[in-house]
Structures are given as structure tokens and as C-alpha cells.
């Protein structure tokens, strides 16, 4: 059913090259990938393989230097900075490894932040914030500042912030990376629950335990999508992928 519909995210021969003076670094190379509505995708791979770069491009925080990236049927490469901000605000929810709550805002204000950039009426904002915080079981901490919360609680608030705007997709970059195993598992349970309710999630993780929560996994190695088996082999052999090395 999902495969028959138009993909929420579609990437064709997407690449990212970092240029520093006379050095070219290929962070991503000819990535072909699709993500459908309601899907839970995990992106794995060793450190420096380009996972986070790919997620940044998906989240419109960065731009590809090559190829095509279509989000909800729209080619994003030609969008202006303003249009990208707008699309990011409405269609994408971020969950970061480092939580990235704003220390000078309360829990409520942090969750409310993306909604304020939409110009949403206060009553609607309030309702949405309460719903989102209830969903992550943090509504009792609305007036607190992030410094008054544990790491697990902060990440739950970050999930609520990502959810509050009803985005088309949740992008999670190592959401459990800064948490102990118990809190990490709690966050994964939360993501799993959200997925069960229909959320589209794309998560970067290098932990196979958490990758198993996803419907599907994509493996990156030296900036290129490889099969799970090849990724395992290359990691053991510790040798570069021939295509990416070009």
C-alpha cells in the first residue's frame, strides 16, 4: 500500500562534496533513497560515513551539491532560504542527540517555539503544546527549564517539540546517544509508539539494537549506500568503498 503511493522523500544520485581550499571531500556519493509516509527508516554506519550529513540534507539544514532531493513532491534544491525555513518549520521535526533545548526557555516555550514561527494562534499553540507534552508524559514539567530536567526528560521534551507541529516526518539524529540504556530504551519506545500511530520517522543510529525498531535500515559507508552485509564486511576489512574513493 505504502509503496504504491508517492514517496514522501525521494533522493536521486544525491551527493555532497565539501570544498576546503584545494581539497575536495566527498561526504555523500550518488545516494538513491526513498522514504514513504508512515515508514520508520533507520540509517546506520560507522562514524564519519555521512549519516548526519544525509540527515541534515533531509532536514533542509544543509544542501546537496549533486543530485535531486524531492520532499512531498517538491524539488528542494531550488528553494530560497526563506522557503526552506518555511518547509522545515511545517514538514520536519528534529530530535537531536544533544537534545538542543534552549536553556532560557521553559519546557512549554521550547515545545511552542516551532509553532510561534508559524504564526499559529495562541489558543491553538497552547492546545498543541499540551497534547505533545502529554504524549511524552512531560506535561507536569511545563514550567521548568531544561537545566531542571534529567537527560531522558530533556529528550522527551525534544520529541514533544518535534511532534508539536504535526510535521510530515520526524528526523532523529542519534536520539539515544547522550542517554543511558534505560532512558535510551524509553525514548525508542516512544518513537515506536509514535510510528504505530502513523508517524514517519527517519533515525540515524549506529546501535543495531535501536535500528531494529525501524521498518527498514539503510547502511552508509564512506558516503555511499551499501547493503547490510557489505557494510559489515567493509567495516571488518577496514577498506574504502571503491566507488566512494573516486
Amino acid at each position, binding site marked *: 500500500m505504502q509503496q504504491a503511493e508517492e514517496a514522501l522523500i525521494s533522493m536521486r544520485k544525491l551527493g555532497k562534496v565539501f570544498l576546503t581550499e584545494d581539497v575536495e571531500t566527498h561526504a555523500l556519493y550518488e545516494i538513491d533513497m526513498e522514504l514513504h509516509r508512515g515508514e520508520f527508516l533507520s540509517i546506520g554506519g560507522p562514524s564519519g560515513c555521512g549519516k548526519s550529513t544525509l540527515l541534515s540534507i533531509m532536514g533542509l539544514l544543509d544542501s546537496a551539491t549533486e543530485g535531486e532531493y524531492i520532499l512531498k513532491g517538491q524539488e528542494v534544491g531550488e528553494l530560497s532560504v526563506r522557503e526552506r525555513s518555511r518547509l522545515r518549520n511545517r514538514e520536519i521535526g528534529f530530535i537531536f542527540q544533544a537534545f538542543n533545548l534552549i536553556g532560557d526557555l521553559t519546557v512549554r516555550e521550547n515545545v511552542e517555539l516551532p509553532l510561534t*514561527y508559524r504564526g499559529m494562534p495562541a489558543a491553538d499553540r497552547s492546545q498543541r503544546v499540551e497534547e505533545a507534552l502529554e504524549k511524552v508524559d512531560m506535561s507536569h514539567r511545563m514550567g521548568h527549564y531544561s537545566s531542571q530536567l534529567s537527560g531522558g526528560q530533556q529528550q522527551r521534551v525534544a520529541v514533544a517539540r518535534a511532534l508539536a507541529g504535526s510535521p510530515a516526518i520526524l528526523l532523529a539524529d542519534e536520539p539515544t546517544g547522550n542517554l543511558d540504556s534505560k532512558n535510551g530504551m524509553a525514548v525508542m519506545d516512544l518513537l515506536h509508539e509514535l510510528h504505530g500511530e502513523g508517524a514517519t520517522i527517519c533515525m540515524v543510529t549506529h546501535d543495531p539494537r535501536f535500528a531494529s525498531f525501524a521498518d527498514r535500515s539503510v547502511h552508509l559507508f564512506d558516503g555511499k549506500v551499501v547493503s547490510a552485509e557489505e557494510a559489515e564486511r567493509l567495516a571488518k576489512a577496514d577498506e574504502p568503498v571503491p566507488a566512494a574513493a573516486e
Partner: protein
Amino acid sequence: MSWLRNIVARSTGSSDAEFEGQLDDELQFHVDRQTEENIKCGMDRATARREALRQFGGVEQVREGVRDASRIVWLSDLFRDTKFSLRMLARSPAFAVTAVVVLGVAIGLSTTIFSFVRAILIEPLPFANSERLAVIGTFNSNREPPMTGASWPDIVDWKKSAKSFSDMAAFKNGDMDLSDGKSTQRIRGLFVTRNFFELLGIPFSLGRSFSESEENDSANALILNRELWKSRYQQKPDIVGDSVDVYSWIIRPEHGLSRWQIVGIAGQEIPFLPVAVDALGDRFGINDQVQFWRPIGLYDEAERKERWEYTAIARLNPGVTIEQARAEMVTISSHLADEYPEANNNWSARVTPLNELVTSDIRPALQLLSGAVAFLLLIACANVASLLIVRGIARQQEFAVRIAVGAGRWRLIRQLITESILLCLAGGALGALLSVWCIDAVRLFAPTKVPRLGEVSVDSTVLMFALGLSLMTGLFVGILPACLAFRTDVNGTLKSGGRGSSAARSRKRWMAILVGGEVAVCLVLLTGSGLLIQSFAAIIGVDPGFRTDNLMTMTVSLPQGKYEWKHNTEFCVELTSKLRTVPGIAAASAVRGVPTRETNFDAPVFIDGAPEIPRDERPDVRLRVVEPGFFEVMEVPLLEGRLFEPADSIGNIGHAPQIICNETMARRHWPGESAIGKKFCVVEADYDKMEVVGVVGDVQFGALVDEARPEIYYPEALFPQSEFTLLVRTEVPPEQMMGVVETLVRDAEPDVVITDTESMDTVLSKSLSKERFLVLLLSAFSLGAFLLSVTGHYGVVAYAVSQRRQEIGIRMALGATVPSIVRMIVSEGLLISGMGLVVGLCLSLALSQFLQSQLFGISAADPLTLAIAAGVLLVATSLASLIPSIRGARVSPASALRSS
């Protein structure tokens, strides 16, 4: 917030509920229509609706888009930004207080200077359409001084011929003594033509202007100002037609009491207008109110050569520019020179806007101070902008998160500018408060001759200026840090949780540019104040030509015309003789005009035996009337010949047999030979010749900065004065003798008017008030700029050191010593200040022309001053670099590496 939303909703013409309701209805309509279309294509209702919703592309997203497109949300955003900014500032009180104080002082000083500029230079004078009023005098480039007044026949001819003006009037200053039979009251006023009131738009509370016959006959008619009407005549409603007793004399002696009829009460208080030649001293200033007007009267063709008495004032016709009027008056002057070659050859009318003439003396000083305070504000802005940039580095994570969740460039910039504007508004409020105090302080030091000083105040216009300046400063201060915030490395910052970013490098570069700029602007101010201080020192160092200590002055005015001329001389001689006998008084004498404060009469000089030159090209000599003991009291050195003797007091003005001249006169007219015995005459070539019997040193009767001019001294008995200045050399501080002298004077003449009782040191000090005013203010601004620049420099270096902890740790781990680390950091700091100094030197030289007119005895491009100012800044900024560099170099390498 509901009230705010209501405002927003009202501004868009609908309430919140109405708007949301209409939006829901509209969206429902489109989904229903698509559902119906799908049903027509064969789908069941449930499938048709699901498909319609899918095709519609998300109701919520469409709803958001419509909201954005149809509603003004900026007001609620502003409210939220303000709330958040206030919280952020409250969390960093040290930063907030520092920024508010720096901005407050700069805005306060700017507001203070603006309030002076506005009241003095911008606000129109209290006459209808005062910007179209012009004062007309005459000019002859062959004469010294080239600018002078106008003769009455000239004014009559100008008025007849000039088409540029709708009307032209004439006036001169004068005073009268009102008498009630028991006592007299000295009043100051104007002799005017009868169209004076209509021309200036002065209404009448009672009565009328002068009639034609009153003007022609120079009748004893008086118009009084309201204040005099209130204070002396208790606002008597039927005063018009009443007669008052007046002792009057201006130039022609008409001693004795006369009856004058009051014909009107002016409906508006007006100040004295600037006159081309002020022979009566500085008591008729723009800050003094005219108390009476009387008809000017006479037309005498024989007076065409007499240009020192009258000034013309005219109103430009609509559409005529001042340049056009000037051109026309030059043409008319040329015709008059053809018609009256003897009197008018080389003389041309000089048209000056009234406002320009009123402010001509203080305008350059105020412009200079405006520039200086603008520079100070610029430095304060750069300082706060640097602080905001540093603060932006600490807030990178916040910016990154805001960008990640959808804040656009403008949205983020707007929020940060809201913060800087809040800071500046707080600074502006503090500045407005400070300006109230500063205005009083500045007024204390301001020269008393500054026009309209009493009108300087903090009113709604000044407060609006402070508000506007605060908003502009907020934008100016905030824009760079805000733009840099948007350049935050979002990915890197979010990944690291906000620790460090390569974007910090560009911030450091900008901070260096800002601080370098501060140093450059500071150097301009330091150089300017250094030059003014040296100029002031040079003025103070000028020898006034007499001993100033233990010398007291007191201006004494006898009722005009009450006594015969002879009595005035006798009174003066008796009074000075009596004073000399008082214990504590070493010597006493009198002079017409106080040295360094007042001018006196100039007249052309005809040197016996000198080549014949036309009258209008003859140099002027200044005539000074003194009581014979003047030179001894003042301790003016006798250079040649002798001082006055009793026998010298014989003759008349212009016909004196023996006179004393000053050194400049002797050197100019008889160079290389003795002046003693030389003969000349003044005023007219056919007057009796005078003989020089003595040469004395130059005395600075004008300002200390003026060049000494040729001057001749008459004994007082030759030119009896109803007003003279007593000069009393005391053996004790002069202040102790003032009461004694005043009692003696009043005992001698109860009707006497006493003014200006001061020590000569005070007179001298007052004569330097403009220079002191500039030096004090510019030095204060420079000191502020210096402190801000040095602290700004310290901040940048300290920040750079904090960012380089790891690098310093690595260097030290590899064997670098503390001195080598300190040297490295200080040299980098010096590079910033060095570049600033180079720019500052160029700027100082480029701007030096604006300062030159305010300097005495020093060039605005004086290399020594520039070098000292640059050296002071270099040393100060080096010290500012040294402290953080030593602190940075003392960090333990292990802890620096660990923390990184």
C-alpha cells in the same frame, strides 16, 4: 495576550473566532466539492472523502498557509520577542547593565548636545517667518575691520531701490533713564524706524507703532515691553497717552529731563538683534529683552559717511533667495558708489540671514561638539556591538535550534534586533535622565553670550529625539551581531550541543574591525581635544598687556543727561581720588570699556606727512577714553615719552593736542623711528592735528586671541562719559573690597547704576568661556571615547585568548614560555590598534580643517599632537592586551588541553 490578539484581529478587520470560522468553512467547502467529484467517478463516500483529503494535500498545512497570508502576526511576534529579550537580559545583568550604561551615557550626551543645537541653531527666532529676515551692514575690503554698520542715507536709498525685500527697517541700540523724580531706572532698548514692528511681525498689546510725523520729527514717543509695563506701571490698562520723565542721551548730548509719551505696549518680548557694530558693548545681547523702542528719526545727507551707527533689517520677498538679494544689493551699492564717490567708493552692502548672524559665533563650536558626540556614540555602538557578538557566540546553540525548527533569516534577525533595541531604549531612558543633569552642567560652562541659552531644555521634541536615536542605535548596534548569528554553523552546533564553531572566526574578525574602528575614531577625538587644550594654553599664555591680579572692575552709569558733561568728569575724578585714600586700595582709575570684554570707537587716521590715500582706504585707529591714572593702575608699561599730565585735559574729541598711542600704532605708522612728537588727526583730515607724547604697551581690549590693533588714548576730560568702568588695584583680594567701593560710589551719587562688579581675573576668565567650554566638553568626550576604546580592546583580546586556550595549551606543552605566549598575544592586539591608528591618523588629518577655526597658535595638523595622541592610545591598548595575555599564558597546559 488576548487583548493583543484582538488588536491584531481588529487591524485585519475581523475577530479571531470569525476568521477561524470562515477559514474552516472555506476548507470544508473545497474538500466537500472534491468528495462529490470523486463520488461521481464511482467511489463510495468514505473512499471519496479520504481521496479528497489526500488530494487536498493536508488541511492543516493549507490552514497555516492561509493564516500566514492573511494575518498580521508581527505584533504578537514583537510581544513575544520582547518578553524573551527581557528575560535574556535579566539573566545577564552584568552585560545588560554595562551595555545600558555605555549606551545611556552616549545617548545622554548626544541628547544634551542636540538640545543645545536645537534651541540655538534650529529653532526659529521669535519673529514671524524669521528665516526670511536678513541683516544688512556694509563692507569695505580696504578697511580694518572690513564689516561695519550702515549710514542712514544708505539705508533710505537701499529701501527705495531694492526689489528683493518686501520691507526694510533700521535700528540701533540705546538706553534711557526713566525717572520718577526720586530715582532713575536704566532701561535698554532700540531706536527704530516705524515699520520695525510690522516687518518683524511684533503685535501690540496696547496702542500702536510710531506715526510718520513721530518718526520724521524724532518725537519723544515711547513703546514699552510688557515686562516693564507690568513691573513699573502695574499693567495700567490706559497707559497709552501717559507721559513719563526720561533722562536720555545716546550720542548727542541733550542733558536734562524730558517728557516722553507712551504710544504703545508691545505684545511680544523680543531679544536684542545682532548689530553690525556694537559700540555700546555686550549688554545688548540676544539673551536680553528689549525694554523700549523710540523713533530713530533723522535724515541727514551729511551722515552718509557715518557707518558705525545703524543696522538695517529686511524681509525677503517670497521666492527670493538670499543669494539673489545679495547680488541685487551689490548692484545697488555699485550705483550708490557712482552717485556718491566720496562717501561710498569701495563700500558694498553685506546681506546676512538674521539667524546666521545670531548664531555665527557659537555655530562652529556646536558643529564641532555635534561631530565629537557622534563619534562618541559611534564608539559606544561599536563597543556594545562587540559585546553582543561575544554574547552571540555563547548563544550559538539557541540560534541553531531556532533555525532548525524553522526560524527564517529575517525572523532571527528581528528577534536579536529586538534585544538590541530594548538595550538602547533602556540606554535612551537613562540618557534622557542624564541629559537633564548634563544640560544644567553644560549650561554652567557655556559662554554667557551663547544665544538663547535659557531656551535649552528637555522637552517633548528632545525626548522624541532621544527615542528616535535609541531606536536607530538599536538597529545599528544589533544588525551586525544579528547577521552573524544567522551565519551560525547549524549542523556543527547542533551536533556538538553548542560547543564551538568555525563561525566564531568570522565573529572575531568583525570584533577586531569594530575595535580597530573604535581606536581610529578615538584617535580623532584625542587629537582634537589635545589640539584644543594646547590652543587654550596658548591663549592663557597671551600677555594681556597689564597686571590682572588684585584688580577690580565696576561699571558705573550716571543718569544720562541728568548732569552737564563737566559734572561727569568731576564725578569720575573725585570718585577715583576718594578711592585712592581707602585702606586696602593701592590705586584707582577709570576707562570706557572693560579690557578683554568690550570694544570702543574706531575712526580713520590721517598721518601727517604720509602719502595721500583715499579716505575710505585709510586704516582705522581705535579711540580709547581713559582717566589719567589708567596706565599706573593697570601697570601698562610706558615704552617711550610720558604719561598724561593735568595740562593734557584740554581740547575736544578729535582736536586733542596731546595723546598717547600704543606700541602697534607706533610700529605701524612710524616704523624704525620714534613716535614721540609725530602728528596726525582722526575722523576727518581737516581736524586739528594731535601729537604723540607717549607710547605704551599694547593692551588687549578685545579678546585675547585678537591681534593687537593701533590704539590712541584720550584723557577722560576730553570726552566726558556718563558711563565708565572703575579700575581699582587692591592690596587684598578684590572681592573683599567690592562692598566698600560700591558704598562709596552710591554715597557719591544715589541714582548711579552699578553693573559688572568683578575681579579682572574673572573678567579674563569669562572672556575665555567659549574656548574653555569647547576644551572641557571635547576633553570629556575624548576621555569617554578613550575608556570605551581601551575596554573594547581589552574585551576583544580577552575573548581571543579564551578561544585559544587549547592552542595555548598545545604551545606550552611543546615548550613555549609564558613571555613568548604574552608576546604573541600582545603583538596581535597591537596589530588591531596599529591598523586603527593608521586609519585614525588619516581621519584626523582629513577632518583637521573643521577644527582649525577654533584653534589659536597651533596647526590642526600639528604632528606632535598627533604623535602624542597615537602614542597614548598605543600604550593604553598594549596594556589592555597585556592583562588577558598574561592571564591566558598562566593557564595550566594540562587543564587547557583537557577542557578542549
